[in-house]
């Protein structure tokens, strides 16, 4: 379980997250929506310990992410993360991209790491691309590669930071399908997204962020059907 308690985050004087309280249960799919600059991506970075926080606490399975004595590298293996930019490692083949972390972080043998990588690439539908370099892959394929790379660490949580925002429209579908597949397999997921269709159809709960505050959270039916906050209503009216 991921527990977030009264989380505050500043960039200099800028108050980006103003006291977030949020729990995500095992097996849950949570979508976070909101305008850009509302702090939703920053929240993911804080959960993964890629950003320091100024107040509050983030607990992953009871371990505090920002405590001094926490082994962040170890904790991060529990959380896979997929970014807006594809971030595939350009100097490694698809197989090497996926196999690297299991090998050097988890200490798996070369053969084992390769086996895991092959399986995960099959999983996301890139079984025929294992020897390609990222430069030979489309944006959608690179993003699926990033998902496979994260899955290879056998994470218990997956964090998606606007995974489809940088893609050409015709490539969005294949990545959303892969995310949907993960959700069906029972992966715990937090997805910052602009894809309202995905948020409505796949998530168990949807949270709306507005200027560093979580305005409201609830089942998709309620958020999209009868939002209680006028900010939410306005935002949803605009994106449709």
């Amino acid at each position, binding site marked *: 379980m991921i527990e977030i308690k009264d989380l505050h985050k500043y960039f200099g004087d800028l108050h980006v997250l103003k006291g977030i309280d949020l729990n995500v249960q095992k097996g849950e799919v949570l979508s976070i929506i909101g305008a850009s600059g509302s702090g939703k991506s920053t929240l993911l970075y804080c959960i993964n310990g890629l950003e320091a926080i100024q107040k509050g606490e983030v607990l992953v399975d009871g371990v505090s992410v920002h405590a001094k004595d926490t082994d962040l590298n170890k904790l991060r293996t529990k959380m896979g993360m997929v*970014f807006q930019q594809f971030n595939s*490692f350009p*100097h490694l083949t698809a197989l090497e991209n996926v196999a690297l972390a299991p090998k050097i*972080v988890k200490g798996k043998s070369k053969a084992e790491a390769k086996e895991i990588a092959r399986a995960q690439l099959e999983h996301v539908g890139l079984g025929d691309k294992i020897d390609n370099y990222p430069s030979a892959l489309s944006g959608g394929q690179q993003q699926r590669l990033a998902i496979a790379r994260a899955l290879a660490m056998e994470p218990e949580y997956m964090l998606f930071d606007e995974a489809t925002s940088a893609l050409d429209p015709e490539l969005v579908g294949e990545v959303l399908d892969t995310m949907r597949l993960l959700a069906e397999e029972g992966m715990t997921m937090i997805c910052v997204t602009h894809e309202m269709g995905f948020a409505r159809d796949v998530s168990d709960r949807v949270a709306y962020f507005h200027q560093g505050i979580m305005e409201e959270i609830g089942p998709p039916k309620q958020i999209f059907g009868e939002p209680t906050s006028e900010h939410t209503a306005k935002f949803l009216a605009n994106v449709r």
Partner: protein
Amino acid sequence: MNFEYTFHWRPVMRKLPDLLEASLVTLQVSVLSMIIGIVLGLVLALLRMNGPKPLAWIASAWVETARNTPALFQLFFFSFGLGAFGMHLTPYLIVLFGLTFNNAGYLAENFRGGFQAVPDTQLRAARSLGMSAWQSYTRIIIPQVFRIVYHPMTNQLVWAVLMSSLAMIVGFRELAGETQALAFKTFRIFEYFAVTALIYYAMVKIILGISRLIAWRMFRY
């Protein structure tokens, strides 16, 4: 106009083995200055980007001096300049240190550009997979920087070979120094320098050829 000069190539040809041997010295000092220069250049680049103030300042002074003064001036510093402190380096060390100083300065700028060209998000992605800072740099960032600076590095090696000819002025007998010594002994200056020019040309072409071959083997992406 007098055309009374007659070319004599035979004495030069007889000394060709000496010249070829001296060109190995040229290669040796250039490559060594390059290897040390790469290490120092990497350190200078990192210090300039995120070292503590005084060290960053020293690194900047190094880089700007190397880039804004003649290489020969830099050699003079290692000969006369250090002489003022009672340090008298051998001609070999003067050339080696001078070339290394220059290489490090130019390479530092290349490396800095290389580091800036690799997006920050690569580091984030690596860290998000649980890699340590060291692993992220050695496995993800530096290999990409290396690819970006590969061609500038090759050019710098060529430049180091050409620059090493300044050794002639400080009395070290690599190819240019050897040529000068032989030429002025026999007064066949033109002939000697013409042959030496050809040897330099060949060396540069061989270096570029090998570099292209390595790049082709190494960078498959």
